[in-house]
């Protein structure tokens, strides 16, 4: 019974990865919108873009990690 609850929890934690995908898409989309408005400034901001994507993605990875922990370590 406990293992099944852990699996349900893992599934719920997995939702977090999907939400992180929304965040990453938001970052990239806003970057693209800004880059199309002012293409000359875009090249200098790619580093910022990747940092933003990394932070957004890290949280998704955390929830994925929680899912893995629930699946394999609990």
């Amino acid at each position, binding site marked *: 019974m406990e293992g099944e609850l852990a699996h349900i929890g893992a599934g719920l934690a997995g939702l977090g990865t999907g939400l992180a995908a929304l965040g990453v898409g938001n970052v990239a989309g806003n970057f693209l919108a800004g880059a199309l408005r002012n293409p000359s400034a875009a090249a200098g901001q790619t580093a910022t873009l*990747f940092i933003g994507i990394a932070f957004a993605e*890290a949280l998704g990875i955390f929830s994925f990690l929680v899912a*893995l922990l629930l699946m394999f370590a609990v």
Partner: protein
Amino acid sequence: MADEAKSGGGLSFKPMDQFEVKSLFGGEVGMFTITNVTLWLALAVLAVIGLLVLTTSKRETVPGRGQSIAELMYGFVYKMVEDVTGKDGIKYFPYIMTLFMFILCANFLGLIPMSFTTTSHIAVTAVLGFGVFIAVTVLGFALNGAAFLGLFWPTSAPLPLRPVLAVIELISYFVRPVSHSIRLAGNMMAGHAVLKVFAGFAQVAAIAPVAIVGVMAIYGLEVLVSAIQAYVFTILTCVYLKDALHPHH
């Protein structure tokens, strides 16, 4: 590692088996045992030497393919360090280049089928992440003294808010090494586990073609992620280093 393909009836997923640390010559895994970790770390060293040392041995003024790659990587990381940390960060360039080359080579070596991904282990990435964190913190205090604490005291904010912000800054500062290391390990682990899960679906003949196409697509994504995670780890290291060099900005 790949012996899960046939294990009785039904689907069998063992996405985590590929991360198992094994002794190469038998025996228990102790501190100095030569394991598959040792093997793939050594291969990463060889890859770095092959990419940066062997290619440049001819010292051509007009570079060939290999030398172009070496120069490209050098220029890429050098420019990153210079752009993010400024001129006084250049003297830390060899350390950052070491991190970048190691993570890049380890990530790509991990993509070879049947290989072992050293950077998917939290122990490995935690050493990298906490190493950066401790080095940067020590450097920050050594260079700026107590003024380094100004990093946690945002003078641009209104006075009543500052203690609250200081607590948030402090927490975010100490979360840095955790997120720094888990981001890399998590990305590598997630990608490889997903590849294994898709490969597990190939056990069912009906959906095997879809599974194989899926494996190919995820593999392409993983190639991208390997390079991006090396880049992200390096640029975040540069950002942290910049905080240590210039706490007030």
